[in-house]
C-alpha cells in the first residue's frame, strides 16, 4: 500500500481548528446552562409552617448538630425538606440508551476502518491483497 503523505497544515488552519474545538467545548457546557435545562434542582414539596425541629422530622441528636452548626429551625427549613425528583419517563431512558449505544457503535466502526489502514501501512498488506 502506498504511504499516505499528510498535507502540511498552515498556521492559520491550525488556529482555526483550535478555535473550532474551543467554541464547541464551551458551547457544550454553557448552552444547557443558559437554556436552563441543566441540573436537578431540589425542591421543597411540602413546606412546614413555623417549623420546629420536631415538625422537620429531626430527633434530638440531629437537632443538636444543626444548632452546633449555627442553624435554627427556620434557617434549616429549606435545607432539610428539599428533595430531588427521581421520576422519569421510559421514553427518555430509551432515548439515552440509544444515544449512548449509537455513539459507541459509530466510534468503534469508524475507528476500525482507520485502524485497518494504519496496520496495513505499518506492517504491509497480508497475502498481497
Amino acid at each position: 500500500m502506498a504511504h499516505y503523505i499528510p498535507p502540511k497544515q498552515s498556521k492559520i488552519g491550525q488556529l482555526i481548528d483550535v478555535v473550532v474545538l474551543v467554541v464547541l467545548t464551551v458551547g457544550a457546557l454553557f448552552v444547557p446552562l443558559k437554556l436552563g435545562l441543566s441540573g436537578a434542582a431540589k425542591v421543597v414539596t411540602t413546606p412546614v409552617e413555623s417549623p420546629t425541629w420536631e415538625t422537620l422530622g429531626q430527633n434530638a441528636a440531629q437537632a443538636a448538630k444543626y444548632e452546633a452548626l449555627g442553624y435554627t429551625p427556620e434557617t434549616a427549613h429549606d435545607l432539610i425538606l428539599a428533595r430531588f425528583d427521581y421520576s422519569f419517563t421510559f421514553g427518555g431512558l430509551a432515548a439515552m440508551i440509544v444515544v449512548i449505544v449509537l455513539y459507541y457503535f459509530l466510534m468503534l466502526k469508524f475507528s476500525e476502518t482507520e485502524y485497518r489502514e494504519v496496520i496495513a501501512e505499518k506492517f504491509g498488506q497480508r497475502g498481497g491483497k
Partner: protein
Amino acid sequence: MADFNITSSSADGMGPHGTKVGLLRVLGPAHVWALGVGIVLVGEYMGWNFAVGKGGAYAALIACWVAGILYTCVAMIDSEVTSTVAAAGGQYTQAKHIVGPLMAFNVGLYLVFAYTMLEAANAITAGYLISVVATMTGYEGTLDQRPFIILAILFLAWLNYRGVLATLTFNLVITAIAFAAIVVLFLSTSGVVGTGIMEHAALMEGQAALPYGWIGVLAAMHFGLWYYLGIEGTTQAAEEVRSPARALPFGTLAGIMTLLIAATLTWYVCSGVLPWEFLGDGVNGSVAPLFDTARLSGSNLLIWLLGIGTLFATLASANGCINDASRAWFSMGRDKYLPGWFGAVHPKYRTPYRSIVFLVPIALIFALGAPLDQVITFSILSGLLGYTFMPLNVILFRKKWPMGSIKRGYEHPFHPLPSIVLLAICAVTFFAVFLGYGTQLVAMIGFYIVVSLWFHFWRYRFVSRAAQFTMPWPKPKGY
C-alpha cells in the same frame, strides 16, 4: 536561532530516531502515587457528599464501595495496558494502538476535559475556602474569590511549566499531609484515641437511613465516582518515570488502596457527625465536609489541620490535573490529532509548555463561569465515558495480542471478569447520571459525536498513518 545540544550527557538518553528535545525521565513510583492520589484525594474533602444528598448516608457508603470496585477494575486494567504502552497520553496512546484513531481522539478529549473541569472545581473550592478563612478571622465584607481562583491556577501552571520533578515532589508532600489529616481526624474523633463523638445510630434513624429508598442508592452512584475520579491519570506520567513497566502498576495499585482507606474513613467520620441533609448539600450546606466535621469536634487544632488539608488537597489535585491534561493535549498535538504546534517540548524545562499555557484560559473560563456541581458533572461524565472505553480496550488488547505475544509488565487476573464488572457498573452509573442530569449527558454525547465527525472527515487528513503506531509490537492478530 540557537542550536540545541543533541548529545548532552545530562539529558534523558533520547537522541537517535529524531527526538532532540523530549520529556525528562526523572520520576519514581512515589511520584506516580502522588500524581494519582494527589488528583483524587480532594474528592474526599469535597464533592463526594453530593452522593449523600442523592440518597442518604448509607447510599453514599454503598456507592463508595461499588465505585471502589469499579476503580479497582480500572486500576488493574490500566496497569496491564500501560505497563506495555508506556507513553505520555496514557489511555489516549493505548486507544490509538489498540482500538483505532477516532477512539483515541475521543479518549484524549475525555482526559483533557475530565482533568480541566476537575482543575476548575478545585480552584473554585480553594477560593471558597479562603473566603471562609477570611470570615473566620473577622473580615466583615464579602471577599472577592476571583483573584484566589486565578492565582491557584496560574501558580500551579507556572510550577508545571518549570518542570515535572519539582511539580510532583510538591504534590507528594502536600498529598501526604492531606492524607495524614484525614487519618488524624479519624483517630481523634472516632474514639480510637480519647472519647469519640460519633453518633451514627441517632443521625441515621428512621427516614434518614434511606430517604429516597433504593433508587437513591442508584442515584448516589453518580457522585460515588467522585471518591476516586482521576486515579487513572497515573498513566500520563509514563514518559517521565524512570521505569514505567514497574513504577506505573505499583504506584497505581498502591494509590487505589490508599483511596479505598481514605474514602471509607471519610464517610465514617462525616456521617457520624453531620446530619445527612446538611452533609448532602454541597452548595448550601457542607461544601467541605471534613472541615465541617472538624469544626464540630470543637478542637481548634483539628479545624486548622483539616482547613490546611482541604487547601492542600485542592492544590494537589489541580496540580496533577494540569500535569495530566497537558500531557494528553501534548500527545495529541504530537500525532497531529490536534495542531502540531502543541507537540512542542520546552528545551530547558522539558515540559509540554505550549499545552500547559493553552489550557490555562480554558480552565479559567470554567472556574469563573460555571457553578460547582455542573463543573463536577461535566468532569464525571467525561471520566465515565473513559471508563466505558477501558473494558472494550482491554478485551481487544487481549484479543489482538494474546498473552505471551508481547512482554507485559503486569497481567491483571481473572480476565475478562474485571471488564464485565466494569461495564456493568458503568451502565448503572449512566443511569444514575440520567436521573437528574440527563440533559447534560445528552449534550455531552452530542458534543462528542460532533467532534468525532469533525475529526473523521476533516482533521484526520493531517495525521500520518503508520507513524502513529509506535510500539515495537508484532502485527495484531486478525489483521
